[in-house]
């Protein structure tokens, strides 16, 4: 970068100095290398295609110190903040990125779950690839480098071959909201063994309103014939900046399903890369974002069909009210040789206000033969005829609007098999919908 580093970059470099050494030579080297890569390139700018609709100029002028670990470990957090119906398995809770043993319960039949900090002490070597080799310079973006340089904790989850973990794991990221202008970073490593089954609910909440930045980078490997059900519920405070990036590798005959509900945050970026690595691998993704005020949420989905007879089905819905802005990019790549691939992508959006904006961009790149691919994206408004129909039966305008808005999103949530959780997500969405008509 030719210019002086931005306040954002300077603060990150300072934060790295404040981070205690891990005591593992390769890890400390990797952190340094990632910090340098981040500091050299800075935050992505407007000419970077991947960030075209999510400008970071304002963010680059903000300075986030590393969240204070001692405070994060001491702050009182009410478990009611993250209680979820239908989610009763193991739970791992992070407050401002720090693992909270007192709020977590890791013991659960069939899974091996440990905080990253503990796993690094006990068995660092198996983590070397994920934490050191994976994100070399040039193979990662700014926030992955930032996360790799600064993440002090996270978790490692392993589900052994053939194991069926019957109860969902609840992963909770709490922003304390009491440490203004601080950042936290969490790193997740998940491996679901051959023929194993696991369900994970990742949940973002805030305990206060102070402005914080959080980043989460996750690597998921799903071995042959494995099954993974992933739910993301993002209900962070309106002052939160959140950047999440996940990679899912799906081996032969394995299937992963994602249901995402994006409600909170000021600036949210969710990037997910799914590689259908083995024959017959399958990835279904469903998601809804509901934005209001000046919220900005950007979902980036990249699905790569790399083997034969792979299937992907993506169904995403967006709602933007107020002056909010929603961004959706769904890219499907069918690689050479991935014959028989079947890819579907649908992204429909609803503008509830004349001041809101939605940018949607489905992309399809096909290098194989005998491929079935369908994609479509729309941006529209609530149907006036339907609104009048409901009102003519006595349903007040505000209720009619939220009824239709919820109906619009229903397709994305109805396939979630956990009924109690599905209902709860629906209720959260309804509570989040605007009740007053926007002009």
């Amino acid at each position, binding site marked *: 970068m030719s210019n002086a580093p931005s306040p954002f970059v300077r603060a990150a470099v300072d934060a790295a100095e404040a981070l205690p050494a891990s005591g593992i030579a390769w890890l400390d080297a990797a952190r340094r290398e990632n910090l340098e890569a981040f500091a050299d390139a800075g935050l992505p700018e407007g000419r970077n295609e991947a960030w075209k609709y999510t400008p970071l100029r304002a963010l680059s002028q903000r300075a986030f110190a590393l969240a204070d670990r001692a405070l994060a470990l001491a702050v009182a957090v009410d478990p009611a903040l993250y209680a979820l119906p239908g989610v009763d398995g193991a739970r791992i809770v992070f407050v401002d990125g720090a693992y909270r043993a007192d709020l977590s319960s890791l013991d659960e039949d069939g899974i091996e779950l440990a905080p990253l900090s503990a796993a690094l002490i006990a068995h660092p070597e198996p983590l070397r690839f994920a934490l050191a080799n994976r994100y070399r310079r040039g193979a990662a973006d700014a926030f992955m480098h930032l996360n790799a340089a600064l993440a002090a904790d996270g978790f490692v989850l392993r589900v052994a071959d053939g194991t069926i973990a019957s109860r969902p794991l609840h992963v909770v990221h709490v922003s304390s909201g009491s440490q203004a202008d601080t950042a936290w970073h969490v790193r997740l490593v998940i491996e679901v063994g051959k023929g194993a089954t696991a369900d994970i609910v990742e949940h973002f909440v805030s305990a206060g309103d102070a402005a914080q930045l959080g980043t989460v980078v996750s690597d998921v490997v799903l071995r042959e014939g494995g099954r993974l059900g992933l739910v993301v519920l993002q209900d962070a405070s309106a002052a939160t900046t959140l950047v999440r990036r996940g990679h899912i590798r799906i081996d032969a005959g394995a299937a992963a399903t994602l249901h995402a509900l994006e409600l909170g945050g000021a600036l949210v970026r969710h990037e997910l890369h799914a590689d259908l690595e083995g024959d017959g691998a399958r990835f279904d993704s469903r998601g809804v974002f509901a934005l209001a005020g000046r919220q900005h949420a950007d979902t980036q989905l990249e699905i790569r069909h790399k083997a034969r007879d792979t299937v992907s089905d993506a169904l995403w819905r967006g709602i933007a009210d107020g002056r909010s802005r929603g961004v959706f990019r769904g890219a499907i790549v069918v690689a050479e040789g991935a014959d028989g691939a079947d890819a579907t992508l649908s992204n429909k959006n609803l503008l509830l206000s004349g001041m809101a904006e939605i940018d949607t961009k489905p992309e399809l790149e096909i290098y194989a033969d005998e491929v079935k691919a369908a994609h479509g994206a729309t941006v529209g408004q609530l149907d006036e005829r339907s609104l*009048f129909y409901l009102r003519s039966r006595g349903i007040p305008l505000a209720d009619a609007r939220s009824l*239709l808005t919820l109906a619009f*999103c229903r397709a994305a949530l109805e396939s979630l098999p956990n009924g109690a959780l599905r209902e709860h997500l629906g209720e959260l969405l309804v509570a989040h919908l605007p009740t007053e008509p926007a002009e």
Partner: protein
Amino acid sequence: MHMLKIDNLHARVEGKEILKGLSLTVKPGEVHAIMGPNGAGKSTLGNVLAGRDGYEVTQGAVDFAGRDLLALDPEERAAAGVFLAFQYPVEIPGVNNTYFLRAALNAQRKFRGEEELDSMRFLKLVREKLKVMQVSDELLHRAVNEGFSGGEKKRNEIFQMAVLEPKLAILDETDSGLDIDALKQVAGGVNALRSPERSFVIVTHYQRLLDYIEPDFVHVLAGGRIVESGDKELAIKLEEQGYAWLAETHPELRKADLAGAPA
């Protein structure tokens, strides 16, 4: 005492004047049939009474049981007891029929300061009405009108009417597109709901519905006004002779106003 009194109603749609001084009085318990050629303003009347956006009243008044109907929002009109059975009921994917109907009924009850029905009492009510209307309860589990046949949609309108128990029901060409069996079912549903307190305005293009629902009055709507009123004999005359003869008694009607003869 009247139920509905429309006085010299003028209304525009997209800048074009459709209703040009329509007057009509309906008393409790009466069934009025409104017939008329295409473009006469039949559907406009239903939409204006139900309060649809885009239908601009430029002159005249509508009194409904002592209230200024035109001052009310569509949902307030519904709660006051006005029901419009749509000519083209909309499909609303993602909204369950039962959920919708309960939300509607309870919203109306809330408006009126009545207690809302819990799901047990609501289901009991629905079961009673299903029996009377001869509607399969399978319709209840589907999304509102989604994938319904034309006949199912119209039967669903009448079923909604039965559950909501309005004071005034306006049927906007409910008979169009129905085969004879569906027509009989719709008529049977309407007849089951007839009572001394409930009035009906039945807008239709064809006389045959009136074979099954006996009207107290038949009106001809042409050129945006009621130009002729009578009893059932008037409907039979229209069926036999069309509308052209009205030009003799109503020289102000243009040929185009009378062009849409019943099929």
